[in-house]
Every structure is written in C-alpha cells, then in structure tokens.
C-alpha cells in the first residue's frame, strides 16, 4: 500500500489520539475515576494504530488488552468517548458500564473482548470464517501480545486459519514482556514471527515503533487475505514505558525495571519518531502538527466532560439482559 499524504496525516492523528487517550486513561485511573484497572499502551501505541487505520469499517478486529484497545479503536474509528466512559463505569460506556473495560462497537467490527489472555485467537478464527462465508472481502485482524503467544489457543487459532485459508491477520505486539516475565525467558527464539512457518503462512517482523512500517506490513497482509490467500503473521517489535498494570510495581522477574532503562526506551517514542519523520519529509509542518495535537487535546477534554457527566448505570439494565430475545 502506497500511502498518500492524507493517509499519513490520518495515521498521525490516530497515533496522537491513541497517545492522548491513553495518557488520559492513566490520569483518570490515578484520580480514582476508573472502576477497574488499566494496562497502559504508553510507548507501544503504534501497532494498534498502524494495524487498524486503513482497515475497512466492516473488517473485524480483536484488540489487544494493552491500552485496553484504545490504539486499535482509535485507528478503527470506533467511538473512543464511549470506550473511556466504559472505564469510568458510566451508562454512556460502550458496554453501558457493565464491564468497566471492554470495547464493543459492532458497527466498527469490534464485536467483543475477553479478559483471559489468548482467548482472542479462536474467536478471531470465527470472524475470519464469517468473513470467508460472507464473501464480501472482509478480514479479521487479531492483535495479541508476545507472551499471549504462549497459550495453546494461539496454535489452534493459527492452524485453523491457515488450514482453511481464512482472511485473518495476526498482529503480534511484541514489547518484550509478559507481565513481569521477559519474553526471552518464556519463548526460546528471538521472534514470535518464527511461529508462522509452522502454519505455512508468511511471518514478518517490523519496527513496531514505526507506525508507517506497521501499517505497511499489516495492510500487505490484509490485501493478501482479502484475495483469499489466507492468513499472515506480522510481528511488531515495540515498547512499554509503563508497568504491566497501572499502580503495580514495574517488575522484571523479581527486580524493578530501572528508571534509566525506561528513559533509554523513551528515546524511541513512536509519536516523537513519527513527528520527526513527517517534519523531515515535509508532510506536515510544526504548526500543522501542533494544530492536530491541539484538536486532540480539545477532544480529550470533551471526552473527560462526557465521562464526567454520564450517569452510572441503574441495576435495572441487567434485569433482562442475560438472554437475547
């Protein structure tokens, strides 16, 4: 996919939206406004944004739990306000405050999310199956973490998708860690992408801090899938600037991750890198960038008002909610 200027601008906007909504989430959680927990994307927003910005509205995505899917929803164009409101437990939330952290926006192909890591794989196979059966060229993009790949569901899902040549794209957000365990201590090889060969599907590694590289790789896999050529695996090497979950110690095994290491990682901030690139390539000027940033700041403020003013759900909404009619 050759990106036009407006694509690159859209990518920037979505990346900054992901960043600023993620930062807002960190802040809101700190202020006690979230009803549950938050696993910040900070530093690792590019895979989610790059992997979704150019999808069709009717493509399915399974967002990764990192950032709770904010980067993915931002890229996909789903409703971020209701998603944040969900975290605040409000009736205006994407699940009416019932989950406290799940995205659900069927109009944008986000049909649900789960809390057991690795449950994404089989469900994504189902979306790929539906897409294949419907024959309208949709794809299902499944985002997952490096360490989620430890689950057997990954194998079952990837094998089924490959076996039936389903239009599924597997996007691994490899930030090198799974909670407190470095992936190098949980998987014997360097690249999660090495698993792709076991299913006869392409497996590529891209710089997950480079949102354009992610978008290119994922969209190449998406086009392949749309043509009926089956699934692919795109591994994005990315970073995590925050602890596994907000408020918890930032452990690596039993040691706290040193502040200097995080400072070092921050040199590869995906937003800064992309800003620099856009400036250097003359796509956007400093002023234009600031304008976008400002617009998003305003959006975030509006979102916070939206979350603030929303009411908490009344228990009655659960009354007849267990079953569909």
């Amino acid at each position, binding site marked *: 996919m050759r990106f036009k200027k407006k694509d690159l601008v859209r990518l920037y906007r979505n990346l900054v939206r992901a960043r600023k909504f993620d930062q807002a989430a960190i802040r809101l959680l700190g202020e006690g406004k979230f009803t549950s927990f938050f696993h910040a994307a900070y530093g690792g927003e590019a895979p989610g944004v790059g992997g979704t910005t150019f999808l069709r509205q009717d493509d399915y995505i399974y967002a990764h739990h990192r950032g709770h899917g904010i980067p993915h929803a931002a890229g996909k164009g789903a409703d971020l306000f209701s998603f944040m409101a969900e975290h605040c437990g409000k009736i205006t939330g994407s699940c009416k405050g019932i989950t406290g952290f799940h995205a659900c926006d069927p109009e944008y192909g986000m*049909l649900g999310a*789960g809390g057991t890591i690795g449950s994404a794989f089989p469900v994504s196979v*189902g979306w790929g199956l*539906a*897409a294949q059966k419907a024959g309208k060229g949709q794809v299902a993009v499944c985002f997952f973490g490096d360490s989620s790949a430890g689950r057997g569901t990954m194998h079952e899902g990837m094998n*089924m998708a490959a076996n039936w040549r389903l239009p599924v794209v597997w996007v691994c957000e490899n930030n090198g860690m799974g909670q407190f365990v470095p992936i190098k201590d949980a998987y014997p090889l360097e690249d999660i992408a090495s698993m792709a060969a076991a299913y006869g599907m392409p497996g590529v590694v891209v710089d997950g801090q480079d949102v354009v590289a992610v978008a290119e790789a994922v969209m190449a896999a998406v086009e392949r899938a749309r043509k009926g050529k089956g699934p692919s695996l795109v591994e994005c090497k990315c970073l995590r600037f925050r602890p596994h979950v907000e408020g918890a110690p930032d452990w690596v095994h039993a040691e706290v991750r040193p502040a200097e290491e995080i400072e070092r990682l921050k040199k590869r901030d995906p937003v800064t890198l992309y800003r620099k690139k856009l400036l250097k390539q003359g796509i956007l000027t400093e002023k234009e960038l600031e304008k976008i940033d400002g617009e998003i700041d305003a959006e975030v403020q509006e979102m916070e008002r939206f979350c603030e003013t929303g009411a908490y759900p009344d228990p009655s*909404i659960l009354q007849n909610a267990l079953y569909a009619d």
Partner: protein
Amino acid sequence: MREILYLQAINEALAEEMSRDETVFIIGESVQGSTFNTTVGLVQRFGPDRVMDAPISENGIAGAAVGAATAGYRPVADLMFGDFIYCCMDEVLLKAAQWHMLHAEKVNVPLVFKAAIGGYSGLCNEHSRCPEAVVLHHPGLKLVLPSDPYDAKGLLKTAIRDNNPVCYFYHKQLLPMTGEVPEEEYTIPFGVADVKREGTDVTVVATSFQVSLALGVAAEMEGKVSVEVIDPRTLEPLDLDTILESVRKTGRVIVLDEDTLRCGIGAEIGMQIMENAFDFLDAPVKRVGAANMPIPGGVLEKTCLPQPQDLANAITDLLGMDRFELAVQTAGVKLL
C-alpha cells in the same frame, strides 16, 4: 405415526434447519463421517463448507463458533464426546455464555454446542461424563437434554433457532432408541417439562437417559408404587411449576441424575423444591446419582453410575416400604 431412531431425529433436525437457514453450519471433528451417526449424509447434501471437519482443536472449534455467531452465523459446534468440553471451558463458559450480557446486548451469540454425553458403555471417565451441572452453574447458556426421538428433534430445531448459546446434550445410550416422530415440521418450546408418566405416590425428576431408567423402574413397580416421572427436557430454562405441581400431589420427590451429586442437578432441583414447596414435603428430597468418584470403566462402572435398583431402593426407602428386587437392566450399547 412413523417411528425413527433418536440419532435420526437429530439428523433430521440438523438437515431441516440447514435447509431453512443458510447461516446454519456444523463445525467439529469428524462430522462429515459422523462419530455417532447424527451428522451422516449432511456433507453430501450441504457441502464441506457447511459441514466442516475441523482439526482436533476444541478451543478453536468452540471459539470459532462464538466468533461466527457474533458475526451473524448460527454455528452448531459439535464437540463429539461431552467430556471434551473440559478442553474448551473458557470459550463455552466465559465467552459464549457471557458475551451477550456483558457487551450490553449489542451482540448475540446464537450457537449450539452439541455433544454426546453419558456412560453405561464402560468407556471410563473421559468418555462418559454428563457435564450438565457445570453448564448450569454458569448463567448464560440454555441447556437441553432430550430423552426420546420426538424431543430430540423438536428441541434441536428450537435450539438452532434460539438467539442464544445452547448446550444440546444427547445421550449415547439413546442413539438407537426408536420413537414416534411426525413427518410434519414441529418445534418444542424450551422450559416446558413433560410428564412422561403420571403417578401419585412419588415424583421422580430425571432427564436424558435417566428418564428411560426411571420409566423402566416405574413400570416394574406398577401396582406396588405409583411413580410419576417428570422430564424437564431443558434444565435452563427450568419448568419448576410442573415439578412443584407434582410435588404438591405426591409429597415425595427423588431427583435422579447420572452425574455425581455434589453441586449437581439433584442438589439444585432439590433446593428449589425445598425453597418453594417445603410445607408439601413429607420427607426430604432424595438424590440418586453417581457415586463420588471418577467414572470407572469396565465392570466397575455400574458401581458408580446409578442403576435401576438404586432408584427402586430410594423409592421404597422414601415410602418406608420394604425393598424389593427389580428385574430392569440398564442398557449397555457398545460404542464405536
């Protein structure tokens, strides 16, 4: 009326619903060449895209069904033996069961988990279980247990049309059972118990193969004890009213269940009866079920699984009568 086999009734329901609705498809291991003959002939008629032979991947099959269901299809996920549900509990109990409500009713999960349950074939712990209690413990799944060909067909058609996830468990011992099934289309609503035999002395609540067992015992006791046999047919939704009505009449109840007692179907139905008809009870509700152990294979299986004599003893004990020996045998179909 014509008579067909239980397994044919299942097969007919599948075929009819697949013809009626293009979004229905079957996915599972060896479903084209049908392990229990319930899906025989379907691939020839509907093609391999609608009768999908999957890899041995229970999580994958169950999860794919959840995905496809939320995306507008009506998968029938064939888990083969009911025991294999243990390999995909996350998908069945935490995804299929919960996604509708948790996602604020924005998505539906219309699917059927179809599986062959039950023992009496000597196949030991992992090919003999009845996973009803585990399912029932988790809100969000409907639970269907047909005890004869008529119910097998009518309930499966309803299950496939339901907009919610349904566990449809058919019993291996019932596969060769014959029974009247009309040629004309029919469905059976969920939540309507069937009084399989009327009686006045004692109520036996049973589902699936245990209905046959109870009817056999009731027939043997005829003249001595008048046994009412109630088959709820679906445990979720549960037709408690019909059960309570019977309890008010007989004052004595046995819940017969093939599975272990602890936190089982008998405990639940027993509690609900006590909660709602305590004053009508002449004696505590009795549970008859499997012994508290993994299901053994071979000749020891019968030490574990409920036998006709166990039910007969429970009935006579409950009525304060002397025990007497029954002639009824539990079936023992060899499975292949």
